[in-house]
């Protein structure tokens, strides 16, 4: 792992440095399954103070890997993993998966200061292929999970779905177009 000056340090030193760099009081709006939760986090001595929807929760956390938290809530222990797949952020509590959106309500754009973007979402080609069908038009309202276009690759057709409820802001390809992995195909806002 890298320290602030770019030299290599141990994991525990890194975590200690991170915790010292966290702002003293953080507020987040976390959305899971369409429901919003207000979260307040505060560093207190060596531990954390935490309120979920105004209710105090006793929490103790150790970051064992950059994407793995060993969390104790009271005396219950949880191994929580964090990953990003195809533009979605997932938090796994044990083997239960939760799609999450995290927003910092105090930041200028209402977005959390993380590399994980929010707001307009890009639909990307998962692999090289060909657009065989466009299912909606620009301006259409879609639900989360609605099919937006169909990409054919490796002799199979893959429906690219909207990651969120919203409006199709732009469709950037036409039927018959060849695409590469990572190409942005459409934007939902």
């Amino acid at each position, binding site marked *: 792992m890298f*320290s602030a000056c770019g030299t290599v340090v141990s994991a525990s030193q890194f975590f200690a440095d991170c*915790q010292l760099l966290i702002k003293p009081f953080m507020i987040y709006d976390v959305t899971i399954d369409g429901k919003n939760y207000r979260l307040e986090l505060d560093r207190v001595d060596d531990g954390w103070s935490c309120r979920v929807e105004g209710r105090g929760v006793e929490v103790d956390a150790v970051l064992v890997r950059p994407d793995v938290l060993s969390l104790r809530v009271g005396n219950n222990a949880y191994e929580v993993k964090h990953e990003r797949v195809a533009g979605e952020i997932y938090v796994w509590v044990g083997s239960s998966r939760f799609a999450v959106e995290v927003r910092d309500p105090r930041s200028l754009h209402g977005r959390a200061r993380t590399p994980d973007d929010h707001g307009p979402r890009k639909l990307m080609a998962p692999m090289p292929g060909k657009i065989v069908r466009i299912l909606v038009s620009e301006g259409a309202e879609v639900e989360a999970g609605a099919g937006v276009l169909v990409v054919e690759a490796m002799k199979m057709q893959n429906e690219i779905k909207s990651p969120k409820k919203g409006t199709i802001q732009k469709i950037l390809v036409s039927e018959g177009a060849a695409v590469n992995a990572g190409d942005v195909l459409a934007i939902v806002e």
Partner: protein
Amino acid sequence: MFKKILIANRGEIAVRVIRACHEMGIAAIAVYSDVDRASLHVRKADEAYPIGAAAASESYLNIAKILDVARHSGADAIHPGYGFLSENAKFARACADAGVKFIGPTAAAMDAMGSKTRARQAMERAGVPFVPGTSRGLESFDEAKEVAARIGYPVMLKAAAGGGGKGMRLVHAPQDLKAALEGARSEAEHSFADSEVYVEKAIVNPRHIEMQVLADEHGNTVYLGERECSLQRRHQKVLEEAPSPVVDVAMRRRMGEVAVRVAQAAAYTNAGTVEFLVDEQRNFYFLEMNTRLQVEHPVTELVTGLDLVQLQIRISAGERLPFTQDEVQIRGHAIECRIYAEDPDNNYFPSPGKITLLLSPSGPGIRRDSGMYEDWTVPMDYDPLLAKLIGYGSDRDQAIGRLTRALNEYFVGGIKTNISLFRRILRHRDFRGAKLDTGFLDRLLKEKEDVPIADPKAIEVAVIAAGMFAALGAAVNRTSTGEARPGSHWKEVARSEAMRGSLKS
């Protein structure tokens, strides 16, 4: 014994063969395509040679290039793994011509089993049971009527020239036969320009049970027990187990002896598998023979205590089988899951990409044959099999319990995998009750998924963790761009730690 073995394959099976080589003190030679340079099998090999572009035809299927590497490296044998060139008689012959031992059967044995009609004729001579029916085309409706009445309904009409389900008709009752025959003939004519149709007994809800055989080059052939492989999706195996829950000792002996006769009829040597369809009355019928080591060989290894790849190498080196049929024991139960980079929420579409986090299970009764590692990018050019996870126990329930526990420990972050499918399968009432047949998985996938209501405690934990990851992620970004904390001497501490060496978690 061989000094150097070239492994003409990639991924988890290449790693598995490399391990057998190292256990036997044999140098392992890897080949890799342009997209496989960072693969695990290259890291584990003693020598590694590039063999060209990603496309299999230019690399792993390119006989000339592979034999070139064999020549250049001085390999005295080649292990073909499974898939790719493993059942390619032309490759087996080319190895022989090049003076390199092909670890597998002879080209002649591959040819004997490769053609369905030739295999059937050889099986008839060997007295092997088939799915009852005709092996020539039906001449008339009257003949069809007579044969169908004799073998019993339901029957399957099949196009002789056919495949892919075209020219096939399932007929439940005599009154449907005429229309079905006309339909099958015209579809066959249309699809293959050949209206020849034959008839077979339709096996209702068959099980797919296969028998492992092993033969040395001195005439000794044994069977090593069966594997139940009925859990398939689009004719691709997904989960296998040994022994089969419906095969008792007597049936194993009968099937095993038939499998040995099949192997002997083809003058087979080395490892092979005889596939059977088994009906609800536990009658078994020869389907075909696979002239290679199979993906699911670990379940047989665990219940017999034998190392099939080591035995393959020994047989090829001219050794006799070190045990007799009577010494083969089946003990305990093993179940294997094939972990694929596929998206279960999107029709199992392949999901290549970078593995950002890998937490791998281990512990009692767990075997993991894997080709992946954390930070590896899964290429999109090949079959996306990442790893095989096998649970072994003293009985089927213990194997299921251990495998379930291991699946809960397994975490592959950054890509989609089919791990959640196996949790669904293992807790299914019919799976636990061993009520399996080749339609099981299709039926399960059609069932509405029993999605448990999220535990509110788990949601709360997810909320808290999401916030912490966001906060720490922001801190991670700030540290990695080089901001130093004012008034600390940890810069010096960090430098001296760096001198001592880094720790990657």
